């Protein structure tokens, strides 16, 4: 056999050996680590997917809640509008009543003032009239004749009462 054939043969054997070693190293050392990395990434992806799903659900719930809140706020707003109009009406009514009370009070005060003035006037006039009457009567009855006449009339009354 020629040396070139042998050389080629050994080259093949060498190549085969190198391939075997490379396969062995790949299978024993690199493949498990790659597998592990793929599994880890896969788990990570699953987690992210799950999280994504959760977030979507959460978003849906939040959206529902927002809708509910909007509905509620609309209702509340409507109620506030109703209350505000009722309150406004009551305020108006109260103001009207107050105005009526003040008007009546003023009328009453006017009447009272008028009455007081009238009474004061009446009292003053009465006082004056009685003072005058008293003076006149006193001067009339100052004379013994008139005074006696009055006493005689009183005595006559008593006499009649006795009989």
């Amino acid at each position, binding site marked *: 056999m020629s040396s070139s054939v042998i050389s080629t043969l050994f080259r093949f054997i060498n190549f085969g050996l190198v391939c075997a070693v490379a396969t062995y190293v790949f299978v024993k050392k690199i493949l498990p680590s790659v597998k592990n990395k793929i599994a880890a990434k896969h788990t990570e992806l699953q987690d992210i997917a799950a999280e994504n799903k959760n977030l979507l659900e959460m978003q849906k719930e939040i959206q529902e809640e927002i809708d509910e809140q909007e509905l509620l706020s609309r209702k509340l707003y409507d109620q506030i509008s109703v209350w505000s109009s009722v309150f406004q009406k009551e305020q108006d009514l109260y103001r009207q009543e107050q105005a009526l009370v003040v008007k009546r009070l003023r009328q009453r005060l006017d009447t009272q003032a008028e009455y007081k003035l009238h009474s004061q006037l009446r009292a003053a006039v*009465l006082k004056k009239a009685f003072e005058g009457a008293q003076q006149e*009567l006193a001067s009339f*009855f100052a004379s013994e004749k008139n005074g006696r006449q*009055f*006493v005689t009339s009183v*005595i006559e009354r*008593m006499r009649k009462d*006795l009989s």
Partner: protein
Amino acid sequence: MNGDRVIARNYAVAFINSFIDDISEQDFLAMQDALAFWEENRKTFYFLEAPAFDAAKKISILNEVLEKLYAPESLKELFALLVRHKRVLLIRDVLREICALYKKRKNILFFTISSVHELHDDELDLIKQFLKNKTGKTILCTCVIDKSLIAGIRCRSETVEWEYSVRKQLDNLRRQLILQGST
């Protein structure tokens, strides 16, 4: 003070029980005058409490006062007794009780009759008769002149008042007019 009134009442009751039949209406009026005199001159008689005067001196002073007031003799005896018992300050209360008891026992009502002019005896008798008829009691009275009546008569006792005077009619009229004005 209450104790003094009880003691005064006891003296008065004893006096009335002993002398009621001896006391005339005139005597009663004199006792009323004595009481009024005592009320007016209360403070003057405080000196009778002073120990500087002996009992005989006090009794003689009191007798003199009573004589001036025409009070009955029996009252002098009572005052002398009060001096001896050292209860001179009770004289006023005793007198008051005596007058009250006398009026009660004799069924007397004492009137003060006021008029503007002096009343005649026959008028006074008729007034007494009228008051007796109205009250059912024996009437004793004293007369006073009261110009404020303007004209007419007023008979006033502790419990009864009867008046027919121009002053009263004026007052009634004034009251009526005031009442009419207030309604």
